């Protein structure tokens, strides 16, 4: 009978403490991005065309930019806590929340699809090459893995795009299936974003499976006459997957930065594109809004991975 999860001593307490620990980090992120942006030379309205003084003053007043810094800061933090990311400085008829609501689902789908594929195929490949060590299957998959690990997304993406979209025209070059119709638009961005994490997970799980394969308890299980599949899934993977789980935390962070590149290559209308565009436009509130949304996602994901790790690893106890 499988042991129920969440039976560990002090688990609930740990979860609550860990969750409360997220709040200061989030506050620091918000404050940091607020102040970096406010001390920056040149405001969003300091542009090539000179605006009459009166108009400029009115604009500044409208966005509360004429108030002292601490007041702006307080106002902004309060608004964010209430879930209002403020107006966009660039698009006067829309606020930041609107853009986030537009872009977030696209990015989430892209990121989660890639991560799921990376985990499933990565572990699968790891199992195959560990159990067939030093065969052609092992060599091929590890060669692919080396390519995936060492070549950055922004080189792999365009090369894939050149061959699959421009040369052979199997898939469209840009667009996104949630906005357009064809599912085909999803293939290239997802594959590109999957590749590096797939590669890393494959290498990681191969190495750790090889290590566990030599351990005593696996030999015992094999000696008992259990079927290889049972040994693999019930005994080996349980121990061998811990490094993979702990890699998921950094993987989320990397997928966020990776998705910025992939979205920019394949013109996916996601958060990454919004972020880069607002960074180029100096759309202050939009930059901060994106950073906050990204940070919340990252922090929550890291939190989940931490808890998951504790549940999976019996050696970890919560004091």
């Amino acid at each position, binding site marked *: 009978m499988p042991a129920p999860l969440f039976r560990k001593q002090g688990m609930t307490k740990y979860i609550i403490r860990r969750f409360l620990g997220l709040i*200061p*980090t989030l506050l*620091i*992120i918000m404050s*940091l*991005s607020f102040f*970096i*942006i406010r001390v*920056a*030379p040149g405001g969003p309205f300091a542009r090539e065309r000179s605006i009459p003084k009166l108009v400029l003053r009115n604009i500044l007043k409208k966005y509360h930019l004429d108030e002292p810094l601490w007041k702006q800061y307080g106002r902004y933090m309060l608004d964010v806590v209430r879930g209002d990311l403020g107006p966009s400085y660039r698009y006067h008829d829309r606020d930041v929340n609107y853009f986030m609501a537009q872009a977030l689902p696209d990015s989430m789908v892209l990121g989660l699809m890639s991560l799921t594929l990376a985990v499933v195929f990565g572990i699968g490949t790891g199992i195959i090459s560990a159990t067939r060590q030093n065969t052609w299957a092992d060599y091929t998959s590890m060669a692919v893995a*080396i390519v995936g*690990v*060492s*070549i*950055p997304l*922004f*080189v792999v993406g*365009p*090369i894939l*795009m*050149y061959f699959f979209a*421009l040369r052979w025209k199997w898939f469209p070059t840009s667009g996104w299936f949630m906005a357009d119709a064809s599912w085909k638009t999803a293939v290239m961005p997802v594959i590109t974003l999957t590749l590096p994490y797939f590669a890393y997970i494959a*290498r*990681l799980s191969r*190495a750790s499976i*090889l*290590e566990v394969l030599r351990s005593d308890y696996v030999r015992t299980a094999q000696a008992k006459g259990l079927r290889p599949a049972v040994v693999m899934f019930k005994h080996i993977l349980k121990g061998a997957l811990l490094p993979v789980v702990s890699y998921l935390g950094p993987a989320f*962070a990397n997928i*966020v*930065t990776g998705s*910025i*590149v992939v979205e*920019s*290559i394949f013109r996916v209308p996601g958060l990454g594109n919004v*972020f*880069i565009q607002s*960074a*180029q436009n*100096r759309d202050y509130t939009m*930059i901060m809004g*994106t*950073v906050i949304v*990204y*940070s919340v996602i*990252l*922090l929550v994901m*890291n939190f989940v991975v931490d808890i998951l790790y504790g549940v999976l690893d019996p050696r970890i106890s919560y004091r």
Partner: protein
Amino acid sequence: MAEKLGSDRRQKAVNQFGESIRGVSLWLDAWRRLKRNRMALIGLVVIVLYCLVALLAPVLPIYSYKHQVLNHQYLPPSLTRTAGELLLERRQRESLAEARAAGREGLSGEQERELGELRERLAVETMEFDGKPVRVNEKRYLLGTDSLGRDLLARIIYGSRVSIAIGIVGTFTAVMIGIIIGSLAGFLGGGFDYLAMRFVDVLYGLPYMLLVIIFMAVFGRNILNLFVSLAIVSWLTVARVMRGQILSLKNMEFVQAAWVVGAGTGRIIYRHLVPNTLGVVVVFATLQIPSFILLESFLSFLGLGVQAPMSSWGSLVRDGVDGMANYPWLLFFPALTMTIFLFSMNFLGDGLRDALDPQSKNKL
């Protein structure tokens, strides 16, 4: 206290300490192991070649990376033919297509005359670069030209200069900051340690790439800001590693001996502790260089890194993506350059790690 010890005895102690560093034998040992790893050696050779080419770029017989010859837009790569010949060929193809569209086989007399004129004009055309007239159409672009008629080979070589320089200088800065803060935190302990490590923890939790992007967007896109912003976010790991090392070393006998003979905090850290951690730091730094290069290219690719007319691998790939439908060489050569370098770096890094820490052999 220190004065009471005879100076010759102190000298002797220093000498013994100097001899007892296993550094020399460790490195020799590592080198011996590295030599046996053929992929790592190939990687090393390739990287040395890259660095040489990047270093010698100003004296190599290549064209300027920023001189634009607007006639020479998008010339394909060619080992043998000059720019003039390529232009003539292109015009001839166009004339033939026109003739065929008009339903004629072969060129009309007028077109022939036009081509002849073009040939003559191309042969004598000169442009002034740095006050000197140059027969531009005699140039040979081995890797073709870009959208502004600049030599791609030169741009790649000068781009490598930028990329490699950022990799090395950035790693150096980050490692220095990390060493200073990490060793101070480990050695002093107490309040400073607590504050520094909480600070590192918080920064670790941040999505630092986003902060770098904000930094670049806000403070302007130039090389200096690129260095600063990358250095700010990359010293964390070094600091942590360093602190751990120092913690494990600071209660050892040789440190106590140094205290006893009256060495100060700074001297102990600088002369006794830091040298003992260098092995770890060097390995870390080697592994850090490619990731720095990647960060820089990532930013340049997004248009937030180095700015025109300067180039780096990232910005070259970006330019290549923009024109790849019709001019694929603009993408392939920069991508290939970068790929070869990163592969070599990967093999060398793996080899170094295996050589310096044989126990890590089968780990990732």
